[in-house]
């Protein structure tokens, strides 16, 4: 299991850090507690976009909730910027640093006007009103929803609601945002807009992002992929390293992006294509090169004349 980047970076550079993290929900009497998280060691470095993949029940959402102090570890510890999440005095500080966006956009919007909802977190943190105003306007501009500031959230599309929810988290100016399957309930267009925002948070604002997902296509955009299974981290690497091991992924109940499965199929049919072309463009280029080569070599052999 390759551990990415850990060699060249020191512990101080980890925004999120889980050490021997074990978690289980309260068991019924006489039962052994089933471990939802079974010894997770993971460091997320500053400015990284980390995708966490795993099938249902792999513990990926439970892990996400630890980074926000919504859950506290049973064993081991979780550090956010060096702050221990088990310390209740630090809870507010931790939540201000690590924002969280959930799956259902409807159930995380508190207010009946978009800008009031975005203001919710800074209001809770007790900022003065002009500071809140500035943060709300800034956050709405970042997600491209500024013109909808006075709208009622229930009249927006799913993708727009999710962008409002992201703005609501950005208004806290967090160092890190954890997304818990943010696109699971969106249509393709909404999904695309949300994914683009997630990527730009990392590239333009330098926010560290943890993206919990089960869409392989979204994971391609990450800098690093962590695969979870049965409450453990089982794979960890760059997207290219992870997706070129389709058999291992299948073993953990996961597929590969469509591009990879297409290239694999072509390879089985005797085309010399690389498996590492992940995005649609890369994939198309790879196929063009391979097919072009085949046609050329065919000409040389005189096959075309027949």
């Amino acid at each position, binding site marked *: 299991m390759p551990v990415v980047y850990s060699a060249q970076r020191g512990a101080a550079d980890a925004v999120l850090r889980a050490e021997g993290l074990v978690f289980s929900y309260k068991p019924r009497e006489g039962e052994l507690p089933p471990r939802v998280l079974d010894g997770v060691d993971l460091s997320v470095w500053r400015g990284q976009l980390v995708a966490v993949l795993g099938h249902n029940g792999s513990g990926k959402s439970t892990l996400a909730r630890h980074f926000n102090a919504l859950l506290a570890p049973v064993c081991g510890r979780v550090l956010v910027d060096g702050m221990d999440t088990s310390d209740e005095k630090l809870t507010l500080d931790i939540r201000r640093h690590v924002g*969280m966006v959930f799956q259902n956009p409807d159930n995380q919007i*508190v207010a*009946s006007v978009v800008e009031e909802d975005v203001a*919710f977190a800074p*209001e809770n943190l007790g900022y003065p009103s002009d500071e809140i105003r500035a943060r709300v306007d800034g956050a709405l501009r970042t997600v491209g929803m500024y013109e909808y500031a*006075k709208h009622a959230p*229930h009249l927006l599309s799913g993708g727009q609601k999710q962008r409002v929810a992201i703005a609501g988290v950005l208004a*806290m100016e967090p160092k890190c945002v954890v997304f818990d399957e943010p696109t699971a309930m969106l249509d393709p267009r909404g999904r695309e807009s949300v994914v683009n925002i997630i990527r730009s948070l990392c590239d333009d604002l330098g926010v560290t992002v943890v993206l919990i997902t089960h869409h392989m296509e979204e994971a391609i955009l990450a800098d690093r992929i962590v695969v979870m299974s049965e409450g453990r981290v089982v794979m960890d690497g760059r997207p290219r390293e992870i997706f070129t091991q389709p058999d291992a992924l299948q073993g953990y109940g996961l597929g590969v992006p469509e591009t990879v499965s297409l290239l694999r199929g072509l390879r089985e049919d005797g085309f010399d294509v690389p498996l590492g072309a992940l995005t649609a463009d890369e994939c198309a280029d790879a196929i063009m090169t391979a097919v072009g080569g085949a046609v050329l070599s065919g000409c040389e052999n005189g096959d075309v004349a027949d």
Partner: protein
Amino acid sequence: MLKDITLGQYFPDDTVVHRLDPRTKLVLTLVFIAALFVARGIVSYALMLAALVCCIAASRVGARALLKSIRPIIAVIAVTAALNVFFTRGTPIVRLWAITITREGLIGAAYMVTRLVMLISGTFLLTYTTSPISLTDGIESLLAPLKRIKLPVHEFAMMMSIALRFIPTLIEETDKIMSAQKARGADFETGSLIRRARALLPILIPLFISAFRRADELATAMESRCYHGGEGRTRMKKLAMSPGDYISLVCGAALALAVVLTNMAAP
């Protein structure tokens, strides 16, 4: 059917009435209601009606929207009027078998109907011209003194604004569940009243379960956005009284005084 609910509906606009501070509007509405119950005699009523019509005109809400809000309680108004007409003693005008209609009864009914219509139009004018969020802010601010005697004013206001936020969401969901049940052959439109009430059960149960799940997720989302009760919480939009608010309050007080005075002058 569910789309017709107008309770708490807000018509966004930018008129004098819309711009008033919610606290002003709340106080004025309460004064209006109190004056309405004190008012006696044609002069008082005329004064009240004139004030109400002025407010409605200034708000540009439109008489049609207000009349629509009265429709659901037409039955109540009719029954009240009938009781007044038939059961008031006084000078008889019409006598048919056991039914006697008196002059006093007719007058009383007319007053009662005017009073009810004005009461409902007045309160709906408040909700039509005030966004739910500023309404709850106004209530929270007006009730703030009660925090001293440990009443959970902030929590109450928060609950109310969340309830208002989720009304459209839950209405939409009810529609969806109804369609789903209809698609499986559920029948909500025919049969006796009891039968129809029982047919609603398969709608209420999924609705409740989903509402609880939503509540749970919302609570988690609020917590993750640093919500920790009203303590140390600030607001983006602070309520501020403008000169217009003070003028309106003075006008409201003058109206109440006028009503009391004409009452005393009236026999």
